């Protein structure tokens, strides 16, 4: 299944939740924010939000800045 993940074309084995995606990526969900098709998804809803084909997903975190 094709999606855009942080701006990169990415293949996923199939439909999965955001929680599953994060786990697959080894990312601690408490340290990031997730935007799904331009809408921010609350952490509480990671487990119930299923990623559709061609979805645009952004996973962001804090980095050093001024």
């Amino acid at each position: 299944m094709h999606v855009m993940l942080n701006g990169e074309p990415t293949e996923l084995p199939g439909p999965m939740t955001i929680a599953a995606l994060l786990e697959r990526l080894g990312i601690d969900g408490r340290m990031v924010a997730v935007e799904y098709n331009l809408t921010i998804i609350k952490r509480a809803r990671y487990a119930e939000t299923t990623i559709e084909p061609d979805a645009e997903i952004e996973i962001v975190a804090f980095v050093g800045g001024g």
Partner: protein
Amino acid sequence: MVDPLVIAGRTFTSRIIVGTGKYPSHAVMKAAHEASGTEMVTVAVRRVDLTAKGAGALLEWIDTSHIFILPNTAGCYTADDAVRTARLGREAGLSNWVKLEVIGDQETLFPDTEALVAATRTLVKDGFVVLPYTNDDPIVARKLEDAGAAAVMPLGAPIGSGLGIQNANNLQIIKERAGVPVIVDAGVGTASDAAVAMELGADGVLMNSAIAGASDPPLMAAAMKAAVFAGRLAFLAGRIERKRYATASSPTSGLVTTARRSG
């Protein structure tokens, strides 16, 4: 002397806000933060690097028990981008505070003040505590305050330039008319620059490059802590007036010698 900095109802003992960018290492950054005594640090919001592990590693080097995290919108060139980034930062973090940057130009990194005011209005309506990075124009500062900014953060000089306060009169005018805290953001190069900003009446100073780029960041951080404190106290203590000629510090009478006057 109890002299806290209060922004949007939150009280800070320290009047220095420090960045988290461009340090030689996370360990040096942590040491610099401790030496600065800061209680608020800025962070940027960026895509997680999926090729590498360690997302969120930065926060592991910040003692959030007494350091408040202030996400910025650095790198945003439109109000929409800044609003979007601010919301992501709110979700990734634990608060509704944002250091709002809407950059106008990559050479100067000066703000696009028209877009900045618009983004401030939008985010304030959305419940954010907005600390906008702005130029040193008193009119823009007034507009930001009217738009609901919790503080105004005029620049002293271009970001990372280290030129120090370029227009002391503008900063002083902004402070004299402001109803919210004024934080001098950007341009500080060395300790005396921070002291000057505070002596002008600023409520605080925000810096990144001056510390992160110093030969010894933790030592410069300690210098900045002392300088901001010194400038604040001097502002409160009431300096002497400037005179073009001299005034003796020692008595001008009672001399054994036949002197005319005493120095």
